[in-house]
């Protein structure tokens, strides 16, 4: 029509290119952000798995052991007590000397002894206790390798590192090479990792005690948090009058959900340990603290589940003469249960991964024995991870990663169960 319109169109067309370019850039930023998240997740998981998977194999050395009664310090017919006291470490040393007769120097000998784990002597002791006919025999036995030697056999230590900077010396590597060439080394699945408690020696350390401690702690947490959480949710959804107290409770629940977990630890220390004098380091206190911490999660998800139950179910029950309480417990809760369970499992998963409040109440002790009850001193899996991560030995790094893999495995299982429950009952 006129010149102005034409001019404007031109201008808009000229700017369009720029605007579209900007649109593409913005979109790219979004994609990059998502990608960044993925990359972080991948690096994290890859790092853990690559560090941790070697820990699931245990290295053994085949040593010809001479069960010489004299060097064991045993008489003709030794009692069980005698065998327990016997000098098995001397026998291992002698056997190693026999296998490498060329080793003479004192310090060389000491290096030689260091190929085999300290745990090997207990292994031999148990073998003799099982079968005393071994005494006097000469037998090839697979003995557990020391963690440094195992690291070399797994290819984690290279000769390129200057000798002064590594614990395993060249001469030890030579011996290990000889053993390997003779077919006297082997790796097998590390079952001890799941059978033993903590140890100062990386090759002997296991997560059994921590697993048991985690189990007891979660048991206490569940027994407290689940009923209390569900009851609280029922009260708030179905019975609570609109008044100040109800508002106070709701504000408190929302705030507790955001209180840092370590503050719950302070509460546990001041109230349960110092005031009520419950035992330190016990799963009982840990469970109580974690249940207070997970309560908000359980209450909030349970309320959502109860809310989503169709009002017609309530009305039907009330219509045939059920009381309010009967309506809730016989009709509303069973329908809401999958949702409640989903929320509770997620809360439990949170509790399983939590460690900060447990540090406060003393669950950081060095625990070798598997706890037998909720009042025994114990530790939990995440805290065990924390303790091992602090240890300087290389062997513990791989143990830490392996323990993390186990922990994450449990978490994935719990979350998968929660997702399954949600999917399964969502249809209704």
């Amino acid at each position, binding site marked *: 029509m006129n010149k102005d319109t034409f001019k404007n169109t031109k201008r808009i067309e000229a700017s369009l290119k720029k605007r579209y370019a900007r649109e593409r850039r913005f979109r790219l930023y979004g994609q990059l*952000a998502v990608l*960044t*998240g993925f990359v972080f997740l991948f690096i994290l998981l890859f790092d853990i798995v690559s560090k941790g998977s070697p820990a699931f194999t245990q290295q053994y050395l085949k040593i010809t052991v001479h069960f010489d009664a004299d060097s064991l310090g045993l008489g003709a017919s030794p009692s069980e007590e005698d065998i327990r006291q016997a000098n098995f470490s001397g026998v291992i040393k002698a056997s190693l000397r026999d296998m490498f007769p060329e080793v003479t120097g004192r310090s060389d000998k000491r290096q030689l002894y260091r190929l085999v784990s300290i745990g090997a002597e207990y292994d031999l002791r148990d073998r003799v206790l099982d079968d005393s006919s071994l005494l006097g025999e000469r037998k090839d036995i697979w003995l557990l390798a020391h963690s440094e030697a195992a690291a070399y056999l797994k290819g984690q230590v290279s000769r390129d590192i200057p000798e002064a900077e590594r614990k395993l010396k060249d001469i030890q590597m030579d011996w290990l090479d000889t053993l390997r060439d003779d077919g006297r080394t082997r790796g097998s699945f590390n079952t001890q990792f799941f059978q033993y408690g903590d140890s100062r020696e990386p090759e002997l350390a296991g997560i059994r005690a921590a697993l048991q401690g985690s189990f007891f702690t979660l048991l206490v947490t569940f027994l407290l948090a689940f009923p*209390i959480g569900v009851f609280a949710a029922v009260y708030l959804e179905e019975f609570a009058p609109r008044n100040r107290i109800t508002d106070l409770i709701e504000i408190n629940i929302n*705030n507790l959900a955001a209180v840092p977990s370590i503050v719950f630890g302070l509460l546990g220390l*001041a109230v349960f340990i110092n005031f009520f004098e419950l035992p330190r380091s016990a799963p009982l206190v840990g469970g109580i603290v974690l249940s*207070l911490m997970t309560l908000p999660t359980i209450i909030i998800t349970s309320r959502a589940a109860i809310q989503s139950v169709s009002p017609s179910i309530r009305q039907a029950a009330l219509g045939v003469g059920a009381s309010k*309480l009967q309506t809730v417990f016989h009709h509303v809760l069973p329908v809401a249960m999958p949702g409640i369970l989903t929320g509770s499992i997620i809360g439990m998963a949170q509790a399983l*991964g939590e460690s900060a409040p447990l540090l406060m109440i003393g669950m950081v002790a060095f625990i070798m024995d598997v706890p037998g009850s909720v009042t025994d001193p114990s530790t939990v899996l995440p805290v065990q991870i924390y303790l091992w991560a602090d240890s300087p030995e290389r062997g513990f790094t791989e143990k830490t990663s392996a323990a993390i893999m186990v922990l994450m495995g449990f978490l994935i299982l719990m979350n998968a169960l929660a997702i399954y429950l949600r999917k399964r009952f969502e249809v209704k």
Partner: protein
Amino acid sequence: MQTSTVFLTLLALCAVSFFVARHRSRLVGMAGGGLTTLNSLPKHYGYMAALWAGLPALALFVAWLVLESTVLQRLVVVTLPAEIQAMPPSEQGLYYNQLVAYALGNVDASQVSEAQVQGARYYSELATASKQLKMLLVSAVAVLGGLLAVLRIRPDFRARNHVETIFTSILFICSFIAVLTTLGIVLSVLFEAIRFFQVIDISDFLFGLQWSPQMAIRADQVGASGSFGFVPLLAGTLLISFVAMVIAVPVGLMSAIYLSEYASRRFRAVTKPVLEILAGVPTVVYGFFAALTVAPFLRNLGESIGLSVASESALAAGLVMGIMIIPFVMSLSDDIISAVPDTMREASLGMGATMSETIRKVLLPAALPGIVGGILLAVSRAIGETMIVVMAAGLSAKLTINPLEAVTTITVQIVTLLVGDQEFDSPKTLAAFALGLVLFFVTLMLNIVALYVVRKYREQYE
């Protein structure tokens, strides 16, 4: 084990009361001309009796457990020689603990004095008596309660209403535990903090620039007076949180925008749960990752370009904390962006704006208050995060804004002060509670403001 025996006995008595009451209500009902003459079903009478038997006895039992050790200590201490009774409370406590340890057989006789052996004998007698009395009294109360309930069974007694009233109060108590927890946190932290401020001046704590909590164990030790200036800890905490937010906010916000506005439904359905795995990873795992992978990597990187990066740099801890918070920021912003009404989107697109223009000029300004609220929540989480900084941040308090240096945080100091055996009365231990108080209030304020902002924002579009 004693505890569980009493508990099981109590449960058994409840069960017995239930059956007796149910049976008796049937008899009463039949005598009055059939079960329909009863106000409630027989099982309601049973429940009533069980509650009457169980609740008072349980209360007594719990009270006994709580008070037992204190009362025993009082009773034993009175019999001890006069010079022991004149001791200050902490020494007396130590003396008494030794005595108890001997009585339980944990310490042999060579380590305790004659008076303690005497006291221990008395203690053992008292403890046994207490055990028996506890069992007896708890059972008696249970039986009495059950009996009272059984005797009250009449055809016109409204047992169901009675039971339901009791049960509703139990439900109320359960929900009131949240309030009690908050109260417990505030009181426990506050009390210890007040004791701390009696020793250390509160203005020294809040404005002091020096943090070195080494206290002299004996009065005659030199040079270890300890200083409790809180500013370097706050600075360190804020520095690490800032680094975390620099990572988490752009990545989380852009991911949320992309997933809610651009991505296809299927892509979103797969991507979101995968990214949320990051939120489910335990913090101790992040700590390990930060300390053993990220920190050495950053140090080597710094070395290769000629920068000196501390091996416990704030950057490493902050970076990993940022990764942890990404899904948190993402799902909060996602909720908030989705809450912006579609009409606004459509109006903008209808005017010819591109998608990115719509997002930047319409959606984000509209969603800004909500996003700010979400970020505040994320900051509060970063400030309270413990394990990552315990494992990857430093211990020495340094007042710096250089993220390449090692700094320490409030949570790290709480953990270092409280882990391990410590005397509970020393300012060093009490300082942890003062820090806890500050931490609690800072996060509480952030949460209250954030929740308020988010709620206001939601109301705007409802």
